[in-house]
Every structure is written in C-alpha cells, then in structure tokens.
C-alpha cells in the first residue's frame, strides 16, 4: 500500500513555542482522513506544512511521495482549501476560474464550469457577495478543477449552516467516489467526520495522539463501567485511554484487541466522537498511540 502523506519527526516552532512537535504519521492512499484536535493543537500548522505554506523547523513531510511545493508540478498535484475559503472579493467567479486556468497546467475547465452551473451561480457575480456556503463551494471547485492527486482541507465547513455543510461534503464525497483521490480534512464536527472519513488523525498538545482506520478504532475501543476498582488490574491487552472514578463506580475507555471476558464490566461500544473525546479528555498529553497505521490486513 502506498502512502498519501508521510510525516517524520515533523515540528514547527514559532519563537519559543512549538506549534507541532515530533509528528510522525503515515496516512495511506485513497482514504478520506479526518484531522481532529482542540483549537491551537497544530492542525492548521500541519496542513500548511504539507502544502508548502510553512517550512518545518525540524523533520520532514512528503505528500504523494515528494516534498511539498518543491516545484510547479507538485503544487499542481496537491489541492488545498484554506480556512474560511479565501477568495478575491473584488474578482468575479469567472475571474477566479480564469485565474485557476492560467495558473494550473492540469486545469479541467469543463468540470469547473459544470460545477458552477450545478451550484446555480452566476459567473459574473463578484465573489465577495457570495454566501459562506457558496464561497466554500467555489473554493472547492478551484481546488478540484486542477485535478489534484490529494486534497487537503482546513476546517472547510466550520462556519457553514447544516444544509451547506451537507452539500459541501456530498460534493466532496462524490468527487472521491469518482476519482479516488486521497483527502485529509480537519474539522471540529465529529458527526460529519464520522460519516465521511475512514481514517482519523488526532493532534493534541502539538503532537499526533492517534492515527488509524476508523473501523479499527471503533472495533478496538470500548467503554467499561463497573464497581470502583484499581485499573492496573486489567489484563495486559487492555489499555486505559481515559478513566473516571466515583466512590462506588469506575468508568473507563479502553483500547482492547479481543473480547472482554470479565462479566463484572458493563461493556459499551463507542461512537467516533466518544473515542476522540476520550483521547482528548482531561487535556493531558496521553502519549503517542501505539497502533501502527499500516496494520495487519483484515
């Protein structure tokens, strides 16, 4: 399996503060990967490093096997949609398409035009007058029409209403279905990510805490509830991710590979949001998640 994104010891420092540190992750090709984490955790920094808008302080990153933005060809292979969908407010939609066509050798003008028509947008309209959802769709069109091999998105739907969000993700998912590109998308909205992502990367406290297939994450994490006890008594193949105790009861989220045999535990499955929250819980750095990204084929 080939990787879409490989980061090795990637770090970025601003002055004395590390926005990202020791980031090592491999995201396989053909995935729609979600990038989650608290605000200021380094998600935007990671995306900007992958796209060449930032240069690393240490470590390296490769996108589709090559360094970011090293030449015009690589710039053409990587599509990027920055936070808040930046566009030129005084230029029309048609101007933006021309801009894309002039600056990208692999531009698919027919696709771009078809997308604008499907959105019922007037090409002569100034981009500054578009609604948030329309802006995001225009920016998505610009990113996709250059026929990238991978698409990186920085919180593309954060400020959109539910309908606009659904439309955006539908277009994105439809493009992936048709062209099989890889996607890495950062977002706060875990419900959306749960629908559309099959891979998850969690960045918290400037480090990568989790990087795994969503199916595996859901299959290997459980919430257990039982009488209060010391969790170091758990079997070796069960790792505590998060725990909470009252005077009578212990609740924990654990990572486990096989079935849980202890009948004194009430066992529950978790949603993706539950898993993410458990890893982000308490704000503490819970350390690098130990599961290898390229796991055994199931």
């Amino acid at each position, binding site marked *: 399996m080939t990787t879409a994104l490989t980061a090795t010891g990637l770090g970025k420092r601003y002055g004395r503060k590390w926005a990202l540190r020791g980031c090592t992750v491999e995201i396989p090709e053909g995935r729609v990967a979600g990038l989650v984490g608290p605000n200021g955790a380094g998600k935007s920094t990671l995306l*900007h490093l992958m*796209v*060449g*808008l*930032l*240069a690393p302080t240490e470590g390296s990153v490769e996108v589709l096997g090559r360094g970011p*933005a090293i*030449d*015009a*060809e690589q*710039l*053409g292979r*990587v*599509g*990027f949609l*920055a*936070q*808040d969908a*930046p*566009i*030129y407010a*005084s*230029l029309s939609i048609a*101007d933006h398409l*021309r*801009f*894309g066509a*002039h*600056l*990208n*050798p*692999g531009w698919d003008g027919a696709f771009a035009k078809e997308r604008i028509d499907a959105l019922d947008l007037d090409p002569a309209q100034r981009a500054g007058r578009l609604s948030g959802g329309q802006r995001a769709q225009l*920016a998505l069109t*610009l990113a996709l029409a*250059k026929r990238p091999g991978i698409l990186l998105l920085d919180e593309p739907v954060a400020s959109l209403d539910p309908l606009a969000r659904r439309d955006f993700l539908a277009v994105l998912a439809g493009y992936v279905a048709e062209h099989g590109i890889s996607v890495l998308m950062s977002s706060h909205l875990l419900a959306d990510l749960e629908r559309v992502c099959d891979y998850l990367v969690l960045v918290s406290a400037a480090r990568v805490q989790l990087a795994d297939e969503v199916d595996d994450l859901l299959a290997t994490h459980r919430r257990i509830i039982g009488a209060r006890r010391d969790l170091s008594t758990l079997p070796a193949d069960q790792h505590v991710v998060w725990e909470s105790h009252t005077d009578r009861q212990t609740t924990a989220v654990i990572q486990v590979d096989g079935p849980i045999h202890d009948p004194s535990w009430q066992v529950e499955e978790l949603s993706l949001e539950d898993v993410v929250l458990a890893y982000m819980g308490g704000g503490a750095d819970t350390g690098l998640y130990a599961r290898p990204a390229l796991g055994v084929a199931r």
Partner: protein
Amino acid sequence: MTWMTWRQMRAGSLAALAVVAAAAITLTITGVHLSSLYSGYLSCSGFTCNAKLDDIGRSYRHIKLIGTALIAVPVVLGVFWGAPLVAREIESGTYRLAWVQGVSRTRWMASKLAVTGAATALVAGALTFAFTWWAIPFDRIEANRIDPSIFADRGIVPVAYALFAVALGVAAGTIIRRTLPAMAVTLVGFIAVRMVIQFYVRAHLIAPVHRVFALTQRFGLGIERSPSGIQLQAGTPEFHGAWVTSSHLVDSAGHAPTSAFINQACRAVLDVAPPSGPPQKGGAPSGPAIQAFQTCLSNVGARYHQVVSYQPASRFWELQWLESAIFLGLAAVLIGLSIYWVRRRLV
C-alpha cells in the same frame, strides 16, 4: 499569471490612466499655446520682448502646479502600487490561495513585479515626457534645468524614482506584511532617500568644476550686520543655468575669514550704518556708506578670493543618467530582497 496581476491591478490602473490622460490633455492644450507664445517671443524685437516674456512666465506659473504634483507621482505609485503588492495578499489571507496554485512563488513574484514595474514606468514616463515637452519653451529661456528644483521633474529621473518607490513599497510590504504600515514606511523611506541623494550625493556624482574669482562687487558681496558684528555673504556669480553647489571666501591657504578680521576690515561700515536693522538694500545709500563699503570690500578682497563649485548646465543629462542609475540600482537590490524574502522567509 500576467493576466491575473493585470486583473488585480485593473482598478488602480484605470485610475492612473485617467490621471495621465487628464494631465496629457491639459499639458497638450496649454503646451501648444505656450509654444506659440514662445515662437512669438523668438521673433520679437525691442521692448515687446519683455511683454512676451511676461506672458510666458504667467502661463508657466499657472500650470507649474502640475510639475509640483509630478514630484509626488513616484511616491504615490510606490505607496499605492508597491506597498500592497505582497502585503495585501498576506493580510487578507489570499496568499493561502495564490501560493498553492501551479506556479512557484518566484514566478508569482516575478510576474507581479514585471507587470507593476512596466505600468509604473509607463505612467511615470508618460507624465514626465508630457511635462518635459510642455516646459521646453521655458527651459530654453531659463536654461536652468540642472537646478535641483527643476531637475527632479524633467528627463528620466522621475521614472527611476518611481521604480525605486515601487520597489521600496514591495520590500516594505513583504517584510512588514501589513498594508498600512508598509505604506507609511514607503512614504517616509522614499522621502528620506530622495533628500539624502539630492542634497548630499548628486553634487558629487561628477566632480564639480571649481573656479576662483577675485572679490568684486559685481558678484553681489553682501554685508550683514548682526549683534556679533559683521558677517560677509559671498554672492554667487551668474553662470547661466549652472547649479552652484558651494561658494566660499578663502585666502590662499584655504582659510575662511575670521570674524575678528571682518570686524576689523569693515569697521567703517559699523560706524556709518545704524547698529540694528536689515542689511543695506535698495534705496540710495549715503555717500559715507558707499565709501565704507568700498573700503571693506578692498580690505577683504586683498587677502580673500571667492571659490565657487558648480555643475554646469551641460552636465544635465550626465547627472540624470547617473542619478537614475543609483535609484535603479537601489530598486534592483530591494527587488532581490523581496523575492528572497517571499521565497525563504515567509514560511
């Protein structure tokens, strides 16, 4: 990329085009008129010449405002076309769209600089050409183009100033990354550099011509009375159209006259004239005053002569090229810095 730069500049370019057109039309209409006045002057005789000169002078003074405005053109271009070039993209966040397209940052910068530079050269060049052409009659009469007040809006230096101003604006915007502060820095920086070069460098671009004159009244030696005694001001000889850069009274050893010497040599002037008041000017000086003045003059002139440094009018174009070269050289350095900064430091 060329189209994109032009499209982003479109509004500003149309404004500039309007200004150039308005100036060109005004200058053409009045210039034709001025030109005919000049032809009339050339064929004049006797005392009609004075009247014709007055007409030309009056015409010139009315439109001279455009020349004054022309002084501002380079810095205006620098502030409005140079400073926002990179700064606005960064401030508004659109760099996150522009720098992920299929062109490298170097190509992006090069295209923006080339289009903006060409537009700057065209606007500045057109305005300067129009104004220089318009001022031909006056320049032929006065022939003092090399004078600092006129030098700056003739010939080719305005284009070099403009290109330098834009380069300074781009560099400021690239490093400061915010448009308004960059505009302020461009304004202040441009004025500073222009003043330094005009007052300290231009006079020495070509070694000035030195000439020595004996002190005579013909050159308008001025005697000024002040609380500390008498001060001498060496008047400047009239070299037609030359730019006098310095004029000193020195003795054969190169020393300026001390105030003790002056007070002693021109003692008679102190006795005659009232102790306070403006220097003798106009009116009919009294006999004793004239005598005292002549004594002072010959006393000083016995030991001191006048050394004048100047740039002759014939050096106008040489100085224009040299000064343009300086400003274009500075522009090139700033452009190199900007490109380096965009490629290496804005990450």
